[in-house]
């Protein structure tokens, strides 16, 4: 039998060399695709169905679609408030994280100072500390700072806890930039901050993108910190609001799935637009504590 495939594509378990086995490849892949996507689609579709449609047509397309569930969740279910809170916290997280992680990442990658290695290893330990393990003293710290029940508590904790991984990501980006760049700028009389701001930062945009996307994703989806720190209903984020909402409207699938849609749509859209950054970033950031 002659092998018609180049060696680059020769890693085949696909059966493409034996056409009769194509289904052996595609059937499992498609089954898995349905397993991955169908539960989400089901919830999203239900959000657009009336109670009647949910009974008569639980698994089909929502035709004609109704916006009643979304409208009710948005107003009566207070999801407009939760959405606003989530958005404020996530955006503040992203801005804070982009600034501090690029500053520190730059210093660790391209400046030299005493204690550099030690501090870097110190941050590395931070990657391994699980939030749940320090949540009790973290709560007490927020209480001492009078930050409990403010956006600030969640923002500060989100940024502090995820900072180590993003410092490492930014450090890797800055390390890859050519040495001649800052030498040339230094000869031209630029100071360290100018070099960072005008020369390096624009070149590290892909890194900043990864930081912004992942930090948004993690803070948007987080449950534990806002659950512990925010008490007032008007400050709750979407995941926390969803949890309390569930307690009140357990039976109302239409409303619940409207909530699910509101919570999952923003990150789903971001993911579909920036797929590659998300996949790469999550694969490299999978170490997060």
């Amino acid at each position, binding site marked *: 039998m002659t092998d018609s495939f180049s060696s680059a594509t*020769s*890693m*085949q*378990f*696909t059966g493409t060399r034996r056409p009769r086995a194509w289904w052996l490849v595609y059937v499992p*892949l498609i089954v*898995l*695709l349905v397993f*991955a*996507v169908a*539960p*989400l689609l*089901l*919830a999203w579709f239900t959000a657009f169905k009336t109670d009647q449609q949910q009974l008569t047509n639980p698994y089909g397309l929502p035709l004609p679609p109704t916006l009643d569930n979304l409208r009710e969740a948005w107003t009566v279910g207070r999801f407009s408030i939760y959405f606003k809170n989530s958005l404020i916290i996530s955006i503040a997280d992203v801005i804070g994280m982009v*600034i*501090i*992680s690029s500053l*520190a990442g730059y*210093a660790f990658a391209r400046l*030299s*100072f*005493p204690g550099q290695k030690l*501090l870097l290893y110190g*941050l590395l330990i931070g990657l*391994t500390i*699980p939030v*749940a*393990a*320090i*949540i*009790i*003293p*973290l*709560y007490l*710290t927020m209480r001492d700072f009078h930050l409990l029940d403010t956006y600030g508590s969640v923002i*500060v*904790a989100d940024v*502090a806890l995820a900072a180590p991984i993003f410092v490492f990501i930014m450090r890797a980006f800055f390390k890859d930039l050519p040495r001649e760049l800052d030498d040339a700028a230094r000869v031209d009389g630029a100071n*360290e901050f100018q070099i*960072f701001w005008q020369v390096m930062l624009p070149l590290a945009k892909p890194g900043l993108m990864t930081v912004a996307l992942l930090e948004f994703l993690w803070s948007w*989806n987080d*449950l*534990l910190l806002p*659950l512990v720190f925010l008490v007032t209903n008007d400050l709750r984020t979407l995941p926390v609001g*969803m*949890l309390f909402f569930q307690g009140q409207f357990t039976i109302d699938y239409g409303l619940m*799935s409207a909530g699910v849609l509101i*919570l*999952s749509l923003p*990150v*789903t859209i971001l*993911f579909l637009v920036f*797929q590659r950054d*998300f*996949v790469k970033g*999550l*694969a490299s950031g*999978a*170490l997060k*504590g």
Partner: protein
Amino acid sequence: MAVQPYSRTIEGVRTTRSGRLRVRRHVVQRYVVAYLFILPVLLLYLIFVLRPTVQTFWLAFYKWNGVSIDREWVGLANFQRLLGDPIFWQALQHSLIWTAVVVAFNLVVGLIAAALLAGSIRGRLVFQLGYFLPVVQASVVTAMIWRWIYAPTGVLNTGLKTLGLGFLTRGWLGDFAVVLPALATASGWMTFGLSVVILLAGMQSIDPTLYDAARVDGAGYTRMFLDITIPSLRNTITIVILLALVDAFKVFDIIWATTQGGPIRATEVLSTYLFKEGFQQNQYGYGSAIAVALALIILVSSILNLTIRERGDD
């Protein structure tokens, strides 16, 4: 710090008798600038990560309700209580079962999917995007969706009845025997996409000539998968296992948003137990002792993870 003559502390600045002071000031200035760059991260890290970590260990030696001014030093009493606490051992066991299910799910499904995707596949991007979609969802979303799937009149039971397997139907989240693996499967649904990506990247970096050689020797696909793919992926597989393991030990959201550790204690894991002890029973000392156990387990797994990853990078 004295600057030695001819030292290259900063780009080979040469210090002479007359120039020494100037150079030193210049060097110190640069250090100060560098420290200013890392200062924000350092401060946040010290106050909101490192200090609470130390405090967790320290609080574990006290009996304290979190409010009163006096904390009672109880030495190792919290840890003694922990070792004799059946709920702690139960929670630990649940964490292990959870971990086993999630790790197995990620590995088996991840390996199969990655192996199939590694070939010349039409629509590979669609499959990859689809598998990854649950990864970016909030765990609260996962929890909601799987609650409906597992509900007594939910998708799973309806499906089983349609297939004539009605005898298997049950209230999945109310049944002691299945609730833990059922929820762990939901967690597997949410995580396997990442494992597929990592494993696929590993497979694509295997030297293709290995397969050519095996093919010449008449090896079939299964042979090649077992004798070439799996051994070549040893490091990648270890990373996937350890990632899933660390993740699984940290689980809180999915359980809290579905069963809150119930029914009774059937899904109690370390994080839910310490949350209850700390924030619901106000047993800050004992809650911290559980947290110490959790931190140590994850620390060991993470160190293993990092060591293997470093070795793999060589």
